[in-house]
């Protein structure tokens, strides 16, 4: 192949000479597939398996350009030596010549004027998890990733530069290989990712117009490269166990609580036997088992300069400590790129994903593990499971032993099967030199079946008939983007680049859901809902949504002498979701850069190798309006919550349905607009051994979309969705990458990536003169995550009895602040007592290598802010209600002889922990300092030397062991008894809603405990 290319070259350039040589890495090993190009750009070749190349050059050619992924591009002047050139490349993890993805194209990092942070696929893979969100945690400044679940395959929430929306959504836009992506991130195999580029400011995201306000995450997947066919194989397997168990009372502590508590039903016969025999059942020990995590990936890639391909597959599975919860994913990926002619290029990418999630739809099964009596027996005398181990009459018939979940796996089935096909095609034509037309087409198909079955008289259905639910949902989407790009360099110093877009996309989703009770026999499960008795009647529901977007965009970029650069962007979007006559909106942005280090006066400061100032301004929007929001008003279901019943009524036996006025629509509904100003400074010191950037930004979001809860007396039940208010975000971001210790010949190296940042969020105004909407936890002048409640001062002590009595309290009850000083304690004493915003947060990755060994660890931390743990809110989860009815999460509660200020007494005033007028004060017990510092990952690896690897037929071989979430260094919450300071969900997770948790809030609930895992893995490339 190479030979034939050379022959063609030879024929074309008769007066040329032949140059050969080899390209080597920093250790002197040959680099296979490195591109060697003439500087004039006319001819290129690739190095062979021994790193050798040969190329024909014409007489007036001055230099060769040598490039290789991950290495600095090198210019080799042609000095006359024609053979055996030894070209040594240096690694370029922070090279300014790196090409980064900027949306509808790429750019050299040094030309970029917006705020963009890139994370390589390899960096992400340092944290082996199911999806990329958690791998991104602490890895990029300004990108806050917070866990929102502990089940396998659970999501995580990404916020770029804070929250700017109350209810229109704060999730960034994901773009996969150039196509806006609408699936879940669980559908993307982290192993397929080549890089992730995060666009943070409006000057970078304005090209995505109505979807750019929350930032844009561009995911680029791996493609084939010209060269020998390469096979890579990566594999890991790990064991996971609970970070820690919930700390519950042991048998003696439980009896102590129960004996003084208001609950006076007495012990059950089983418990009395347990007391007699000194039983201390640990329900968590009985049910938790180690889980595992495993991942296998195989990729074959290669190609020539005419066509390149890659094809691969992956398998991932994660289980957890509880039965019935796991996540399995299989992926297939194929890409191909064709250079059809010198003017025409085309290619495709196809990602297929199939996943099965178990245990995501049923309620968490942790409650009984915490609350079952430690005095009860888990097994009967004959060794069978004691099905009804509850220690009180109220639960006796309704709480079955959680051991049944392991012994009767078919009695509760909770399965989500998901298929997702994501394809993109492109064709590119070079019309004239510098002018290109490109068509990107995206086709997306998603199908999901959620199936649930709870068997007759089983763990989930004690003493009652079975029930099954099937929900089928299909989503389709297509997009067409027409792109024209023009690149031209005039008189060496003027570089112009223009991109124009005309695009269209449409998406539709539809679901049908059926629930049927009383299936004929349990073994049928949900497979045929017709095999069931006629009563109760089936419950049916469905939904449909369709929306379209028309986009036009123009971006112009001008660079003068690599010193001054300016980018202008304009986008105009038309959306079906806005009302008639109101559909088109425009999004302008401007940004500029000044590479100070390229100025003459900087030549005298050699220690600074790069210094660039950037500034940008732009307007973007947040497409957070659901389809049909400007239509409708009537509803035939009882609330907007999915799965809620239809409005039906019966006159005698005649069943009829009803339509009521649920909401008012605003025909002038508009997007939320965010104006962002960004100033950034990129620096490189000591020949870019230390690189990084500092950013300062302000973002003001206006026309906030908000569903105003009208007073019930307005006669309208649902909130009135309209544009009100204003939110600002301001913040700074710092990132540093440093090669602390470098070595040329496999000696000791140490590199550090560090980032830290803060964001200050503030609700500036709401509707008109409204300063607070307590029911939605919105307070003007406060962050969106404000917490409004009484302020807990401690516990009333015996010595304070007289003062307590003035407020209607007795010693042992919660002591609250009389905030308004009126001498009474009532709801009027609530105020904003905190918020969830971190004062500062960030992450650090350290990497060490020595010879073939590598060692790395990733730290993630937050300082400041308040977390909400519903585990400690007595009425939310009943896990710390201390009423003696059930066992509890152990707390340091007040008694006359234990004058703590942590938790109130279980037995004063009939068990009321607060006065009746402040009976909702239990929520104050669930607030903790949210600060923590965690080790996310520690990895230790060894790569076999190339020579040794070759002996077993491989190019590279690395083995490693890794520990995930091994330590929490510092966390006031953990010190107070909690398991993990990271959230387990969003909004109220309790049985009873404390009433002051917004649907936006991240909360800790009684969920599957977080796990730590120990992993061993292997990467081979052949």
């Amino acid at each position: 192949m190479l030979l034939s290319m050379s022959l063609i070259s030879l024929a074309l350039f008769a007066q040329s000479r032949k140059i050969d040589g080899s390209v080597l890495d920093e250790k002197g090993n040959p680099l296979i597939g490195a591109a060697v190009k003439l500087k004039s750009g006319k001819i290129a070749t690739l190095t062979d398996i021994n790193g050798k190349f040969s190329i024909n050059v014409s007489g007036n050619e001055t230099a060769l350009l040598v490039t290789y992924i991950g290495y600095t591009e090198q210019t080799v002047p042609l000095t006359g030596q024609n053979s055996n050139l030894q070209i040594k490349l240096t690694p370029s993890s922070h090279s300014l010549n790196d090409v980064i993805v900027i949306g509808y194209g790429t750019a050299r990092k040094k030309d970029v004027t917006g705020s963009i942070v890139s994370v390589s696929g390899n960096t992400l893979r340092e944290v082996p998890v199911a999806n990329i969100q958690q791998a991104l945690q602490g890895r990029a400044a300004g990108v806050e990733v917070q866990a929102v679940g502990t089940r396998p395959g659970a999501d995580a929430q990404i916020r770029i530069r804070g929250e700017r929306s109350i209810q229109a959504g704060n999730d960034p836009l994901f773009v996969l290989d150039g196509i806006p992506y609408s699936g879940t991130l669980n559908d993307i195999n982290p192993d397929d990712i080549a890089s992730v580029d995060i666009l943070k400011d409006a000057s970078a995201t304005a090209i995505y117009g109505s979807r750019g306000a929350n930032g844009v995450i561009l995911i680029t997947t791996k493609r084939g490269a010209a060269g020998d066919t390469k096979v890579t194989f990566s594999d890991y397997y790990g064991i996971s166990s609970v970070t820690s168990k919930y700390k519950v009372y042991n048998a003696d502590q439980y009896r102590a609580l129960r004996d003084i508590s208001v609950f006076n039903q007495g012990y059950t016969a089983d418990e009395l036997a347990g007391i007699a025999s000194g039983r201390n059942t640990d329900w968590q020990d009985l049910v938790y088992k180690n889980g595992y995590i495993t991942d296998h990936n195989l990729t074959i890639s290669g190609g020539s300069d005419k066509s390149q391909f890659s094809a691969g597959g992956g398998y991932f599975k994660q289980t957890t400590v509880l039965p019935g919860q796991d996540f399995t994913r299989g992926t297939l990926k194929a890409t191909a790129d064709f250079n059809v002619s010198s003017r025409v290029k085309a290619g495709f990418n196809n990602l297929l994903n199939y996943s099965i999630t178990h245990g995501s739809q049923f309620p968490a099964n942790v409650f009984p593990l915490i609350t079952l009596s430690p005095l009860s027996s888990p097994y009967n005398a004959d060794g069978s499971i004691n099905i009804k181990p509850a220690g009180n009459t109220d639960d006796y018939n309704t709480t079955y032993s959680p051991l049944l979940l392991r012994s009767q796996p078919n009695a509760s089935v909770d399965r989500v099967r998901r298929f997702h096909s994501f394809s993109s095609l492109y064709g590119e034509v070079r019309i004239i030199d510098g002018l290109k037309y490109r068509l990107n087409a995206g086709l997306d198909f998603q199908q999901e079946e959620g199936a649930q079955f709870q068997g007759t008289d089983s763990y989930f259905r004690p003493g009652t008939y079975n029930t099954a639910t099937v929900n089928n949902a299909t989503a389709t989407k297509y997009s067409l983007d027409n792109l024209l790009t023009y690149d031209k360099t005039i008189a060496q110093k003027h570089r112009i680049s223009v991109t124009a877009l005309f695009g269209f996309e449409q998406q539709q989703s539809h679901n049908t859901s059926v629930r049927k009770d009383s299936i004929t026999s349990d073994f049928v499960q949900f497979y045929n809902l017709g095999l069931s008795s006629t009563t109760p009647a089936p419950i049916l529901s469905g939904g449909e949504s369709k929306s379209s977007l028309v986009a036009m965009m123009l971006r112009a970029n001008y660079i003068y002498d690599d010193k001054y650069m300016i980018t202008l962007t304009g986008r105009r979007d038309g959306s079906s979701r806005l009302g008639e006559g109101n559909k088109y909106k425009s999004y302008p942005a401007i940004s500029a850069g000044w590479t100070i280090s390229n100025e003459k006066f900087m030549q005298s400061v050699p220690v600074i190798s790069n210094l660039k100032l950037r500034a940008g301004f732009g307007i973007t929007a947040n497409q957070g309006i659901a389809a049909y929001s400007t239509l409708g008003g009537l509803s035939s279901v009882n609330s907007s919550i999915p799965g809620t019943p239809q409005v039906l009524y019966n006159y005698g036996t005649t069943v009829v349905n009803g339509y009521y006025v649920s909401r008012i629509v605003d025909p002038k509904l508009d997007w939320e607009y965010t104006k962002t100003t960004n100033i950034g400074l990129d620096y490189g010191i000591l020949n870019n051994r230390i690189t990084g950037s500092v950013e300062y930004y302000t973002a003001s979001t206006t026309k906030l979309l908000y569903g105003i809860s009208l007073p019930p007396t307005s006669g309208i039940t649902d909130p009135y969705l309209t544009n009100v208010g204003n939110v600002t975000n301001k913040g700074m971001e710092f990132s540093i990458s440093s090669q602390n210790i470098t070595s040329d010949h496999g000696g000791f190296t140490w590199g550090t990536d560090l980032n830290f940042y803060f964001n200050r969020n503030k609700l500036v105004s709401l509707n008109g003169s409204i300063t607070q909407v307590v029911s939605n936890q919105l307070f003007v002048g406060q962050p969106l995550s404000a917490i409004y409640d009484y302020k807990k001062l401690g516990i009333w002590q015996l010595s304070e009895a007289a003062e307590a009595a003035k407020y209607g309290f007795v010693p042992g009850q919660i002591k609250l602040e009389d905030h308004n000083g009126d001498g009474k304690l009532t709801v009027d004493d609530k105020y904003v007592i905190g918020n969830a915003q971190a004062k500062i947060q960030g992450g650090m990755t350290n990497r060490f290598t020595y010879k073939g060994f590598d060692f790395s660890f990733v730290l993630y931390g937050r300082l400041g802010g308040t977390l909400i743990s519903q585990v400690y809110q007595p009425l939310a989860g009943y896990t710390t209600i201390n009423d003696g009815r059930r066992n509890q999460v152990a707390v340091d509660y007040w008694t006359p002889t234990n004058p703590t200020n942590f938790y109130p007494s279980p037995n004063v005033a009939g068990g009321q922990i607060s006065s009746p007028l402040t009976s909702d004060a239990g929520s104050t017990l669930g607030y903790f300092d949210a600060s923590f510092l965690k080790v996310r990952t520690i990895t230790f690896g060894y790569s076999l030397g190339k020579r040794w690897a070759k002996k077993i037929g491989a190019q590279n071989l690395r083995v490693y062991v890794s520990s995930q979430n091994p330590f929490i260094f510092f966390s006031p919450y953990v010190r107070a008894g909690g398991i993990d300071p990271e959230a387990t969900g969003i909004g109220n997770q309790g049985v009873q809603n404390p009433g002051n948790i917004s649907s936006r809030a991240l909360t800790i609930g009684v969920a599957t405990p977080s796990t730590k895992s120990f992993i061993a893995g292997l990467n081979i490339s052949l």
Partner: protein
Amino acid sequence: MLLLVTTLLGSSCKKSLEEHPYTAFTTDYYKSADGLQAAVNAVYANMRYDFGPVGALALGNVGTDEFTFGDQVASSGQFLELGTYQIPTTNGAILTPWNRNYNGINLCNAILKFAPGVAMSDATRNVMMAEARYLRAHLYLLLVENFGAVPVDLGSGDLQFTDVPYYGFNRLPFNDILKKDYQAMIADLTYASHNLPVQRPSNAFKLSQAAALHLLSKVYLFRAYSVVKESTDFGSAYTTAMELINNKGKYGADLLQDFGQVHKQGNDYNKEILYSVERLPLNNSANEDLNPSTDFANKVNIANNLFNCLYQNVASVGGVTLIDDRPLQYGRPLRELAPTPYVSNVAFADKFNDSRYDNSFRVMWRVATVRTGVALQTYVSNLASVGFKIGDTAIYLPPTEARAAQLVAAGKKYLIVPPSKWYNNQTKLSFQYPNLKKYDDSLRANFQDVSGRPFIVSKLSEVYLTAAEAAMQAGHPADAATLINVLRTRAAYRPGLSAADLSARVAAMQVSQSQITLDFILDERTRELCGECIRWPDLAIRNKLIDRVKKYNPDGVGHVAVFNNIRPIPQDQINSVVDPNGDPNRNKYQNPGYY
């Protein structure tokens, strides 16, 4: 070039940006006959919020002379707050009517706005408009009796359909608005009593003139006790009630011979009942209740479970527990509502001649189970080993101490709880108390489930009581005694009594006009209507709440005060109101005493 492409595609894009939903409805739907009927159905369904769920049951019963909170709720929550008269503005129960009724009222306003333009026969239209007006009046009454003055103008004018966002709260000044409230209810019910069908269908609870007359007489009576009373109110209440009583045949209503049959399951459509909020047994979707064993609120009827005491695992003989699960007929022992001693000691001091105590309360639980198959056999043989079988007495609450002592002395092995040990929040000597059984429902899929029975809203017997009270207050108490004796005569009836026994008991039950006082009428209302979720407004409207709570409800004595005659306006309402003049003082909207 780009321009060209844009222009070309622009026109086709315009179409693609139009929305053509398959599932969204606008108020235009109400301009069709089907749509209007769907609106009427939705208001009927809206009434389910006020009759059956936990909040409505709490508001109607707890903190009265009849009922206090049970042991299950003794440490926190809405029952405790209402029952001890320490009611924060965040109380959960008050949200039930407050958050639900205005939507129904506004929907009635919409029906009345759109109906004249809908193509349908005038007869049908008049009935639908009359239904809307009855329902609007009833929704208003439930608000007025709890909260005092409430807005007649929701944002678009008095009694007008509001479909604009409105943030105001038109309840000031209180007395002017209260006057309008009563005027609106009376006008609506007067219209309804002329335009509804004269009778309801025999097997369904479509609204009828009978139901409208009942409510109209009650509204007159209530206004007569209010600050906006008219001198004619008692008289109007009397005439309206008597129109129905005197022509009960025409209106398709009648008193049953046996009080015990009125609330009997399976007899839900009997002639004494004028209007029930309907539900269907075992039909979760028709009952708008997808999770009948866990849902307490929304539109469920949970009355079958709230009044039950702890009967499970409390009676055992020789180590064998007689009832250890939750037999369907006894319901889930939620223990949220317990009768006060007044019920047994005062109202039903005579449990012999008056059949209504035995017909209202369960005092005996028999051995029963939900077991089947092998488990049932084991249970039966365990029982046999201690000399018991299914159907034997397991728990008994005798009416007197003497009877209890007698049974103990006779060596009865079942659990005997004498009246002195019945549960109350002061002494907590046991967890047993007489259970209201009017809402019993054994036709459920599961022992935890709520009920699928219709919930009685109005009965002909109450019309007699309204008429009697109006007669007394209007100054002709002889008529009052006559009317009350009709009910008391019926109350003496028990099936199987000999004619002599019956006539002796009837004679013993008669009262004379000198006995008729407001307190007597309230006692009689307990006897006839105990636990029917109207007691709290009955007392509060008549300004008898403070008196009778202090006299009969030891849990409420400590804090009950005059301002408690109406409830607090929910804090969420206060918080969400925007004063049109920017006045920051929101407390002016709150009822006095609650801020």
